[in-house]
């Protein structure tokens, strides 16, 4: 609890004092009915026990999400059966399916409309990283390119058991949070994610400068970057420099190492 302000620690101590030292007398008949706990615990307990998901299906995974809510797997056991169609009333967005470029502005807008505290669970391979459709021209390779994700559930689609496991992990995450450090009680915390726009391709307003640099440089170089799709409509598109970063090279080395290990063993 290093992040707590010292006066807060003191406050907590002061408040607990009477309880810890029996200064408040509890009547005998109420002895079994009084529980003492921390604000965090009760706050988190109530939040995670009635976490309402957004009624929001994208693709195949949505069918498994419905199956999870149906009678066999019974999401009501976790207090999550109330799926709210309105983002204003929901706590958790389950991104259940392939995120396409045409859809991603709507998803980001819905995310912005959700009231804090809000959580995002990325369900399935597509929402996590593009999945089998990653190379598709209309497919976003993972919703975390645009909005922050709390829990990823792998699978194509994840079975209801897997989704429930992911939701329980989400509950654990909520349980670990504290009112003093959660972002939504901080000053100027609630940040809107800029909504992506549909141009010749989808573009993130946060990357406008980067895109402009690359496209204008490509035009200045006489569209030398037009190695791709010469002759077609996509001629002259700017793919940008293929200079691999240190991270990328590390990833490649790792893949190479794994392959060699496989060959050796």
């Amino acid at each position: 609890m290093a992040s707590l302000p010292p006066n807060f620690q003191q406050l907590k101590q002061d408040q607990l004092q009477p309880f810890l030292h029996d200064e408040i007398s509890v009547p005998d008949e109420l002895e079994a009915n009084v529980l003492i706990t921390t604000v965090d615990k009760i706050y988190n307990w109530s939040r995670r026990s009635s976490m309402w998901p957004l009624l929001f299906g994208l693709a195949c995974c949505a069918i498994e999400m419905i199956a999870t809510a149906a009678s066999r797997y019974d999401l009501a056991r976790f207090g999550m059966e109330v799926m709210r169609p309105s983002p204003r009333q929901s706590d958790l967005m389950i991104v259940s399916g392939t995120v396409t470029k045409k859809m991603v502005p709507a998803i980001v807008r819905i995310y912005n409309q959700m009231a804090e505290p809000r959580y995002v669970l990325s369900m399935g391979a597509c929402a996590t990283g593009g999945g089998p459709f990653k190379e598709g021209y209309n497919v976003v390779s993972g919703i975390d390119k645009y909005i922050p994700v709390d829990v990823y559930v792998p699978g194509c689609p994840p079975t209801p058991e897997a989704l429930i496991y992911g939701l329980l992990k989400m509950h654990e995450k909520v349980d670990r949070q504290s009112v003093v450090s959660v972002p939504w009680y901080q000053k100027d915390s609630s940040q809107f994610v800029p909504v992506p726009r549909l141009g010749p391709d989808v573009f993130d307003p946060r990357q406008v400068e980067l895109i402009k640099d690359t496209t204008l440089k490509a035009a200045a170089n006489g569209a030398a970057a037009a190695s791709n799709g010469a002759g077609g409509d996509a001629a002259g598109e700017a793919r940008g420099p293929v200079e691999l970063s240190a991270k990328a090279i590390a990833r490649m080395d790792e893949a190479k190492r794994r392959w060699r290990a496989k060959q050796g063993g």
Partner: protein
Amino acid sequence: MTEATAVAEAPANDLGLEQDLADAVLGTWAEDTEPAFVIAPDRILDVLTRLRDASGYDFLSNLTCVDYQGYGGKLRADIDDRLEIVYNLYSTSRGGGSIALHVRVPEDDTIPSATSVYPGANLQEREVYDLYGVKFDGHPNLRRILLWDGFNGHPMRKDWHEAYYEEDAKPFRSRHPQGEYAFQEDKLPWAKNTTYPAGWDPDSWEQAVAYVPVSQAPQHDDGAHLDTESIVVNLGPHHPSTHGVFRMLTRVEGETILALEPEMGYLHRNHEKIGERNTWLMNMPFTDRLDYLNSMSNNWSYALAVEKLAGIEVPERAEYLRVIMAEFTRIVNHTWSIGFILNDLGALQTPALYAIEEREMILDLFEAVSGARMMCNYMRFGGVVRDLPEGWHGQAAYLANERLPRALDELDRMLTENEILRARGRGVGYLSVEDLISLSVSGPMIRAGGLAYDIRKAEPYGIYDRFDFDIPTLPNSDIYDRYYIRMLEAKESVRILQQALRDMPEGETLGGRGGYTLRAPEGQVYSRIEAPKGELGFYLASDGKTQPWRYHVRSPSYINLNALGPMSVGYKVADAIVILGAIDIVLGEVDR
């Protein structure tokens, strides 16, 4: 079933096309598996009209385009025209096979729109325009459909490459055999799957003006009506009643719908572009994800098309297994759809929960044979991938003989006589069966309009000619009938299941090697099955390599949406929700 639909032969050779329209028919195309003609672009409407009116080909099943740039096969060696539009026509009155028409167009040409002859060409022509850039003269609303206005280029063209493009054929050299794979994100400065034209400036970009539908209702300027203003209401793409990421643009006056335009593409995940890069078998798991409620039917349809192209035989036991899986799937789909029609009517949750109770038991069976609940990937070219595990048959027989008939009867008792369902369903969403056929609508929708047209009887595939079952029809073509026809069809499926489980022989389940290294012979094929939602077809073109040259899915959900606008005009907004529900769409298949 009427007598006429039982005759499964098409009088393809005595059409008299060559005599009557000699100047329009440029030749025949023998490499197709069906009778096929090459038609002059400017005469296509004459030929279509002639075939519809004089030869009874009243159903435009498939309309698509193939880009032959860089085609490696021998057949088209002396053909210069780059693009080829393909039409597949069927007769709903006579049944039987198709007739294919090919129209060759150079790159930037315009051809006449078929919408004046077959209004059902509407969405399919828009798709061809969007993905290939072929313009259709006389189309009522030629806009992009799967992508957005302003998108750069026509992505299905062979020379259009996306940001993560690596090679034309899988497996990619970067991953096999060395496995030295660099992440695609690392190769782009913005780490996203996007490309932009050189010189494009995002600061000055202005988004295209949003399309607004025009009223389709008759004008009343007789002075007797109040002059009111209509407004545009947008439903979706995030709306709980649109069954996924689907958008309906409506123009309403009060609560009455004056015009309704479906907007799609929010789940367009490029099956066809990816499919042209995959090997033949790699596409099998992708078909699972088309209509993700019915992966088994999709598998079968694709397997049938490839088998027809490559001439692969299927062993007896595998044929039975395919029928069993497909009919279980049909029950899953129909009960699901019934549950969600009721959901759309406002009976939230309870009927749907009842309706999908048996689904879980069927999915357990699927999981036992294939390892996955939903994405089964069970069929192979020449059979099915593995035989049944122990105890499977007994469980399936218990479901087919005892549990499912009881469950369907219970659902029937609970819902069919329900007063609200009748009040909301009777007479709502009416469209005559003739209109439905001309709009290329298929499946339960036309059978709820009184036409006994079912491909299982009209052009039997697999071993459907061995089973004793009826094609239920209902006369009214409204929401109530569309609900009830699904109940009746599910009951017929139970009958087929009982017979198939009883008669299934022992034996092998996969003839040949399952197509792991298939090279389909050069040619084209269009093959279709009666999927639970309607006619599911695959149009495949092969240049003799390990990948399909063209992989096109004729999906029932997508083409049935042709009827959504015409069916909804004049009804209330609340009815439009149910009208959409009763079409029974799945967005994976609509947008592909």
